[in-house]
Structure formats: structure tokens, C-alpha cells
């Protein structure tokens, strides 16, 4: 007997294809984000785990100045330590063919054993060769380059780059290209986003590096793998004790390893996206299904009564209507799984530019899809069951009678309408909206959501622009930052200042420290700055410069938050080099920053506090751009420079990266905003039309023109849309704030910037969607058979 009911269902689905599809698409959007985020997440986590395991990514990392090789045995004896691997690592300035400005490189030694392709790999942080070969043990000029750098600079095997190794300019020949679990995310320490052209990692034979950096029989970098169940913190403390006499600057675990941390942050964000966005979309879909089913049941009450009179049970009939919701959910889930998988591929493609894995071919996750389908069915059930529960209760005799007119009563609102002398047609619209505050409210929320999603999608661009402007134009006004290998006498600045084309030089002292407030502790560097500065300004949240006090320490807002300290509080500074002094210092200022967790002091105050001679770690330069080439050449030849960072180049690279990724995210967001806007507004329009059709047809019969009736219909929609927009702005601001919080990490933060342009654009697009949806639905008003509508009751 059910087959006939199913036929009815299919026919009705066909006749309401537009509405059904619109809801299915809203469900699909939620499912798509869920599938995209969670399958990318699961894929990313699995890929990372496999990579870390297979290439034995270390658990703990430490660097020092020069440690005799036998000390590694002491580290190996620490309880819980499984493997110890020592290396020689050096940061150098390099010149790359085709690049005017100097770039930075990190040289990492490869042990004899790791160069022997026949031996079983035993060390840590093994590299994965993607092309070419490993360097030979005694070839001083052979290196393996990191893949990101190699591709970004369009190099070939055999290409030569020049590096300044311990003051000596040496040629390095690329014989191979590799990936490493240590550099899944290849970023220079202190940078804001990766710059693959100007930062590369180079692996070469340990023998060569020992010779170049005077490290015979010694190492300056150690990696440790610990046994399962061992606390990394206790091992870190022991390593720090062992390395202290050798200039150790504090060991750290994976959570602080820059590449691993970026990857962790991304995984955290994906998880948040995969949960929050689908909840929004599926709630909207549940609401739409509820309203549409309720309307359908109201229209079919006579049919329901007849079925019940014939002996169909309440459950039979309810199930018949619920199937409608389930079918839509199933179509939505199917579309969502397809779109989600496609999007996940897009996101993985984007990730493959950031995260370098040996293999990064996305595979769809059937488990995630199954869960997505269950969730969409659940949301449809919520929407459907609420509407269908009425069918169960409906008595056949009662349902046979035409419904009484919707109930309206007088209240204080009527006074306003009377005072304003509004026409009956306006009053009609306003009373309808007021009578159903929940439906009107949810519709407003739905349309507002479209405005909100649009706002978030535009917000990212504004926020990143503001952040870049704040960081690179207002705060940091230098063109070049030169960092020396070791702290040197302040007179080195003169050499830089004397270069033709250098307009201004300001030295700085950078000191690795561990800051402690009670049980809260953080590793960072204190930047000792000049009192009279032009090139590196500290700013407050309004972008106004703040004074650097003659004593005490100034913390970035994020660092102050991490350490739970404010102005007036005290901190313990533990210097992580040389004499490793521990001193107490007062917090005398907080500065706003969008990247890193930095601390600042007056350079001379820093020297006084450490009881050290005046020394500098590097300098900020402002240059005459016309003479940049000469200056770049010069900088590439200055001995003992560990790094040269060119701001304009970094900025260009950041903008390129952001643009490329923004394009993908922007297109996803725009599609979602359009789906929400059109899905919600179109369905709203259809529901309004279904509810009003009889009234509007009556108006047509009693002499209202098509235009007048259309205006009445569209006005209701427009009123809801207009009130929805401020609500959308509010929700949008909340979502933007959530985005800010979601992205907030020690590495970088984005500011909550909501421009007027963003507000207007999101409102404009929402209104446009409302108008388009209204006009599409209005067409059905023209096709209404007046005779039939009037014959029907209800």
C-alpha cells in the first residue's frame, strides 16, 4: 500500500524541485565543509604521523655553541632517551642565481652513515631525496637543497649558489633535492610567512661543515628521540644542564619546533572549521525543512484526513512526510560529499605549497563521508520530526474541516501603525511578520548569516592588509635587517653605515632568554634597541608609537598574556647564552604586535642588567633604493653575517602567498555565502509565497495590479532582509572575532578589522540575493491560477 504514497512523494518532489534543491544545497554546503575539513584533517594527521615515524623526526631539539662529541653519550644516558643524533648546523648568507638580493640558508650536516645508501638509517630527522643524489663524504662543495627553495628559484641539478661560510665565500653545487620532517613548513625563524625564494636548507657532509666552522670533534646541534611514556620536560631539563657549559641555549620539544607548530596550528584550525561551519548550515537546513514540511502538511490536511479515514496509521502518514526530509538530506549529503572531496583536493593542493611531504596525494575518507551523511540525516530528522509530529495528532474529522483563519489580536503595536497612518497593505505585511516572531526571527537570522559569511570572507583580506601595514610599514620602517653570526662590537655598525646608499643605521642586541613569571615560562629573545630610533618602532593598539623606558622590559601583548603579567609586574630573565645570568626585571610597557612573542629593552639597560660590554647582534638599515644592488652585493660579502633580510622582498613574497591562497579560500567563502544567501532567501521567498498565495490572489481578483501585488510580496522579503543585515553584521563581527581567536597563535595574530567597505559590500550582496530570489519566485505569482486558488480554502 505504501508504493502509492511513494509515488505521491516522488510527484510532489518533482513539482517542488526548486525548493527541495535549494534546501539540499544548503545541506550540501554544510556537509561539504565537514567533509573538506575533516578529511583534510585526517589525511594531514595520518600523513604527518607516517612522515614523522618513517623519517624519525626527533622529539627534542637543542643547540649550543660548540659541544665535544663525547657529550652526546651523556645525553644518551638520560633516562628515557632512545636515540641521540648530533649535527653541525649553521645559518649563512647566500647569493642565488637570478636573485639580486642576498638570501639566507641553513646548512645542516649529514653523518657519514646517513650518506651511505647501503646502511640502515639510524639517525634522526632523515631526509627524503626527491631527485639527484646525496653529497659524497669528502666533496666539500656538494649540497642537497630543500625542495621548496629549489623549485621557487627554478634551479636545476648542478646549479651553483654562493654561501658565506664562516667569513669565506664558497661555492655550493646542488647535487640533490630533498625534504625533511624538520622542514615540512619551511620558514626562517622570526619570519611571518614562508619565503621559499630567499630561505633554503642545505644538507652537506659533516666533514665539510666541521672543517668550515671549526667543529672538528664537536657539534652544535642535537636531536633526541625519547621513549614512549617519558616526560619531555624532564629530559629537556637534563639536556639544558649538560649543554650549559657549552653555550646551550635551551632545549625544546616538538610543540616549539617551528615547522611542527605551524602544522599543529593548521590542524587545530581545520578541526574548528569542520565543526562550527557545518553546524550553522545544517541548522539553517533543519529550519527550512521544518517550515516547508509544516506548510505542506497544512496544505494537505484534507489528504491526510482522507488517508487516516481509509485506515493509514499516523505513523504511516508521518513517515511519508519524513521521507521527503530524508530524501532531501540524502541528496544534500551526496552533493556535499562530492563537493567536500573536491574542496579537500583544492585545500590539499594549497597545502602542498606550504607543507612539504614526500607524498601528498589526497585520498577521500569514507569514514568522514559516512559520518557526514549521518549528521545530515540527523539534522533533517530534527527539522522534519517537529513538523510531522502534528500529523500524528491530527484527527481525521478535524482535518476534513477547513482551517480557521490564522489568529491575530490587537496589541500596542497597532497604535504605532494607526499613528503612522500606514496603509492596510503595509499593516498586513507588518502584522504577518510580527505574528510569527520565531519564523521571522529565524528567517532574519538565516539571511543575516549570508551577510555574516560574506563579511568573514572579506574580513580576511582587510585584516591581513592591516596586519602587514602595521607590522611592515608603521612599526618596522627599515629596508634591511642584518644579523651577525655572533654579537660584535658596536663599531661594526660603522662599516654598514659607511656603505654608499645607506641612509640610516640602527644597531640592536638580540639575546635568547627564558622569561618566567611564577609557573609560567616562555623562550624568546629580548631585542635591545636604541633609545633614539626611527626604524623599529613599538606601537600601541592604535598604531601610535610608545616610549621605550630607560629601564625595565617591554613585552608584546601576546607574550604578556602568555606569561600572565602586566605593566608593574616582575619577570625573571634567564639568559640562554654565555654566563646564563638570572635577573629580575620590571615590566614597564606592553606593545601591540601581530607576529611572534617578542620582548624589548633599552640596549644600554640590557647591557647594564647583564653586566656586559656594549655589543650588538645586528642592525636595521634604511637605504636609497637606487643603490640597492650595490648594497646587496656588499652585504653578501660581509664576513660573519648570519642573515640578511630584505623587507620589500619579504613583503612581496608574503603578498604573493596570501593572494594565491586567498583566491582559493575567497572562492570557497563566496560560494558558501551565495548558497546561504540564495538558499535561505529563495526558500524564504517560496515559503512566503506559499503562505500568501491565496491572499495575494484575492488581492489580484479584487482589483490590485500585478505590480502592486508583487510589491507587497517583495516588500515583506525586503523588510526581513533589511532587518537581517544589521543582525548579519553583528553575527559577522562575532564570526570575524572567532576567526581572529581561531587563528591566534604565538606565531601570528590577525587584527579584528571591519571596514566600511566590507559592511556595505556584504549588505549589498545580501540585498541583491534577496531581490533576485524574490524576482524568481515572483514569476510564479504571475502564473497563479486565480480561479483555482480562490476555490481552495486555507
Amino acid at each position: 500500500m505504501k508504493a502509492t504514497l511513494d509515488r505521491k512523494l516522488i510527484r510532489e518532489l518533482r513539482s517542488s524541485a526548486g525548493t527541495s534543491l535549494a534546501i539540499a544545497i544548503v545541506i550540501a554546503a554544510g556537509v561539504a565543509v565537514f567533509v573538506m575539513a575533516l578529511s583534510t584533517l585526517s589525511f594531514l594527521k595520518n600523513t604527518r604521523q607516517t612522515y614523522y615515524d618513517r623519517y624519525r623526526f626527533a622529539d627534542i631539539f637543542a643547540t649550543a655553541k660548540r659541544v665535544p662529541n663525547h657529550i652526546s653519550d651523556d645525553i644518551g644516558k638520560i633516562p628515557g632517551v632512545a636515540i641521540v643524533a648530533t649535527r653541525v648546523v649553521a645559518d649563512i648568507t647566500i647569493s642565488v642565481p637570478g636573485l639580486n638580493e642576498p638570501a639566507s640558508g641553513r646548512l645542516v650536516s649529514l653523518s657519514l652513515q646517513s650518506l651511505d645508501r647501503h646502511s640502515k638509517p639510524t639517525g634522526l630527522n632523515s631526509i627524503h631525496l626527491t631527485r639527484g643524489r646525496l653529497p659524497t663524504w669528502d666533496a666539500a662543495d656538494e649540497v642537497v637543497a630543500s625542495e621548496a627553495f629549489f623549485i621557487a628559484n627554478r634551479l636545476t641539478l648542478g646549479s651553483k649558489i654562493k654561501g658565506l661560510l664562516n667569513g669565506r665565500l664558497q661555492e655550493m653545487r646542488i647535487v640533490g633535492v630533498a625534504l625533511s620532517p624538520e622542514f615540512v613548513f619551511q620558514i626562517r625563524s622570526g619570519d611571518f610567512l614562508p619565503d621559499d625564494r630567499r630561505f633554503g636548507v642545505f644538507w652537506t657532509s659533516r666533514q665539510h661543515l666541521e672543517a668550515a666552522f671549526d667543529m672538528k670533534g664537536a657539534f652544535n646541534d642535537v636531536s633526541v628521540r625519547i621513549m614512549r611514556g617519558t616526560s619531555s620536560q624532564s629530559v629537556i631539563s637534563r639536556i639544558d644542564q649538560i649543554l650549559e657549559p657549552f653555550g646551550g641555549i635551551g632545549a625544546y620539544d616538538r610543540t616549539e619546533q617551528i615547522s611542527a607548530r605551524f602544522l599543529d596550528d593548521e590542524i587545530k584550525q581545520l578541526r574548528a572549521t569542520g565543526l562550527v561551519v557545518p553546524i550553522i548550515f545544517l541548522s539553517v537546513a533543519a529550519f527550512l525543512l521544518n517550515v516547508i514540511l509544516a506548510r505542506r502538511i497544512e496544505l494537505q490536511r484534507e489528504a491526510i484526513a482522507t488517508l487516516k479515514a481509509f485506515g493509514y496509521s499516523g505513523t504511516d502518514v508521518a513517515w511519508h512526510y519524513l521521507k521527503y526530509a530524508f530524501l532531501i538530506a540524502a541528496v544534500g549529503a551526496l552533493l556535499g560529499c562530492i563537493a567536500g572531496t573536491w574542496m579537500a583536493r583544492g585545500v590539499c593542493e594549497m597545502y602542498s605549497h606550504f607543507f612539504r611531504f614526500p607524498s601528498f596525494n589526497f585520498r577521500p575518507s569514507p569514514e568522514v563521508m559516512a559520518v557526514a551523511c549521518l549528521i545530515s540525516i540527523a539534522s533533517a530528522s530534527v527539522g522534519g520530526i517537529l513538523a510531522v509530529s502534528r500529523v500524528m495528532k491530527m484527527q481525521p474529522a478535524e482535518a476534513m474541516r477547513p482551517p480557521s483563519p490564522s489568529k491575530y489580536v490587537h496589541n500596542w503595536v497597532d497604535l504605532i501603525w494607526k499613528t503612522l497612518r500606514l496603509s492596510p497593505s503595509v499593516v498586513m505585511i507588518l502584522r504577518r511578520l510580527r505574528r510569527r516572531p520565531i519564523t521571522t526571527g529565524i528567517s532574519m537570522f538565516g539571511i543575516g548569516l549570508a551577510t555574516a559569511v560574506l563579511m568573514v570572507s572579506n574580513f580576511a583580506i582587510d585584516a591581513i592588509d592591516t596586519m602587514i601595514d602595521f607590522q611592515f610599514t608603521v612599526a618596522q620602517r627599515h629596508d634591511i635587517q642584518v644579523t651577525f653570526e655572533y654579537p660584535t662590537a658596536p663599531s661594526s655598525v660603522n662599516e654598514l653605515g659607511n656603505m654608499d646608499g645607506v641612509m640610516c643605521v640602527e644597531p640592536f642586541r638580540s639575546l635568547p632568554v627564558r622569561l618566567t613569571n611564577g609557573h609560567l615560562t616562555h623562550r624568546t629573545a629580548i631585542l635591545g634597541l636604541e633609545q633614539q630610533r626611527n626604524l623599529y618602532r613599538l606601537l600601541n593598539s592604535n598604531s601610535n608609537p610608545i616610549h621605550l623606558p630607560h629601564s625595565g622590559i617591554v613585552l608584546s601583548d601576546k607574550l604578556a598574556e602568555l606569561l600572565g603579567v602586566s605593566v608593574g609586574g616582575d619577570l625573571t630573565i634567564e639568559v640562554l647564552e654565555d654566563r646564563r645570568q638570572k635577573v629580575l626585571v620590571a615590566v614597564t610597557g606592553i606593545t601591540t604586535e601581530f607576529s611572534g612573542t617578542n620582548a624589548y629593552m633599552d640596549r644600554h639597560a640590557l647591557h647594564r642588567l647583564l653586566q656586559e660590554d656594549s655589543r650588538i647582534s645586528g642592525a636595521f638599515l634604511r637605504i636609497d633604493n637606487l643603490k640597492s644592488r650595490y648594497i646587496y652585493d656588499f652585504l653578501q660579502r660581509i664576513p660573519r653575517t648570519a642573515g640578511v633580510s630584505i623587507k620589500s622582498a619579504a613583503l612581496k613574497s608574503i603578498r604573493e602567498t596570501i593572494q594565491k591562497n586567498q583566491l582559493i579560500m575567497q572562492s570557497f567563502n563566496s560560494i558558501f555565502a551565495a548558497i546561504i544567501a540564495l538558499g535561505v532567501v529563495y526558500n524564504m521567498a517560496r515559503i512566503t509565497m506559499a503562505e500568501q498565495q491565496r491572499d495575494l490572489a484575492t488581492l489580484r481578483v479584487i482589483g490590485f495590479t500585478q505590480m502592486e501585488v508583487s510589491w507587497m510580496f517583495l516588500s515583506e522579503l525586503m523588510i526581513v532582509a533589511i532587518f537581517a543585515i544589521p543582525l548579519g553584521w553583528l553575527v559577522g563581527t562575532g564570526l570575524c572575532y572567532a576567526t581572529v581567536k581561531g587563528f591566534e597563535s604565538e606565531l601570528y595574530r590577525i587584527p579584528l578589522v571591519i571596514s566600511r567597505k566590507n559592511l556595505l559590500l556584504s549588505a549589498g550582496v545580501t540585498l541583491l540575493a534577496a531581490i533576485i530570489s524574490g524576482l524568481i519566485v515572483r514569476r510564479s505569482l504571475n502564473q497563479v491560477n486565480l480561479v483555482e486558488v480562490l476555490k481552495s480554502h486555507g
Partner: protein
Amino acid sequence: MKMTFAPGPNRNDSTRSAMIRDKPIVFRVQSLCKVYPLDEVSVHALRGIDLEIQAGDFTVLLGASGSGKSTLLNMLGGIDIPTSGTIFYRDQNLTHSTAKELTMYRRQSVGFVFQFYNLIPSLTAGENIALVTDISDSAMTPLESLTMVDLADRVNSFPSQLSGGEQQRVAIARAIAKRPDVLLCDEPTGALDLGTGVGVLEAISTVNQSLGTTTIVITHNVSIGQMADRIVTMRDGRIVEDRRNTQKLSPRELQW
């Protein structure tokens, strides 16, 4: 003036000629056909209707379901168009009128009363009427028209606060508020019990007599014909009887 009537057993040419001399023709219907093409068969709702209606007449269109009376009324009201034939409303050829002209025709000249009242639930009785008077030139006030149907005290009531009969009387008040030339009522008592139905018919009768509105009421209730000036009976899309009622009864005297 040419007189065209559908053939009927009770034709009384001399009476009719006298009357036509007195009253102008409001509707002239010639060879009116309406065919609804379905998938495999065509339904002939009207099969060549010829009819003239005089100003001020109270006409009852009688017939069983499917006889074509509603189709004819809808065409007279300008909400449906014929397959062939012509309908003249005074000098206006409704069959050649555009949608806009038909809207204007309905706005200015026609008052509709529906079986299921079709009141806007979100508007009070007075506001439902104001909806019409706002777009008419020489309308009465909502209160005036509600007084005519004896419902002045319910001007601020919403439809949900009115009984079925009261709702239908508000619908009549809404239809006549603009002082239409014709009042078209489609089964106005169809959804009402006897007592309530009488009240509604009294309201229609009052409007017809006091305003002189040409009134056409369709019903399948033969008794209602007794209060009309003229009774037109339809069957299978044709007029099978057209007679004048010489002994009009008041609605209270009707029995059904």
C-alpha cells in the same frame, strides 16, 4: 437593441422586451465556449452560451457541480478567459482586454464574494475593506459598508474573531465598499448553515436593492432562486432554463 437569450421553456418575450427597454445591458455574452484541454480528453466547460444581463438585476445562476456556472461567473468577473465567443461589459469587450485592462475592470466595476470568504487574516474587518477603498475613487468608508451588512460593531475584529456568516458578510461589505457596478457571488452560502446563510443572503439582497448593484449569485441551491429577479439554470455547459421570477421572496421566507 438585439435581444439574445438562451432557449428556455419559460421564455416570456413580451415581459423581457418591456424590461430591456427600461434597463441598460450590463453584460452581453455571445457564443461563449470554454474548453480545458487535458492530456487525453478535453473538458467542455461552456458550450456556446448566449446571455444578456440588465443593470440592477438580481440573477441567480443555478446548476449542479460541473454545469459551468462558476466558469461563466469567473469570465464575467475577468479572472478567466474564454476559448471562443465574446463577453461585453457595457462597451468593453472583455475577451479582447489586456491583463491590465481586466485588472482595472475588476478594480473599478466588480465586487467579488467567494465561497470561502478570502479575507486577509492579518487585517481587521475594517482594514480588509480599506484595502479595497484605498484603491477606489468613489468608495464608501469601511464603517458605512459594514453598516450595510449590519456589522458596524465588528469593524476592529480580525477574521479569526468572527463566525463564518460574519466573515462572509465582511466579504460582502468589502465587495460593495467601492460601489461596484456588478456584484459577483460564488456560492456565498456554500460553507454556511441555514440560519447564517439567510443573514448573508439578506446582506446581498440589501445591497442589490439599496445600491442598485447588478448582482449575480451562483448556487446549486434551488431555493435561493426564489429571491432573485431572474433564474438561469445551467447543465453541461449550456443554459437550459432562463426565467424571470415574478414572485420574489425575501431571504427569510426561503426554505431549503
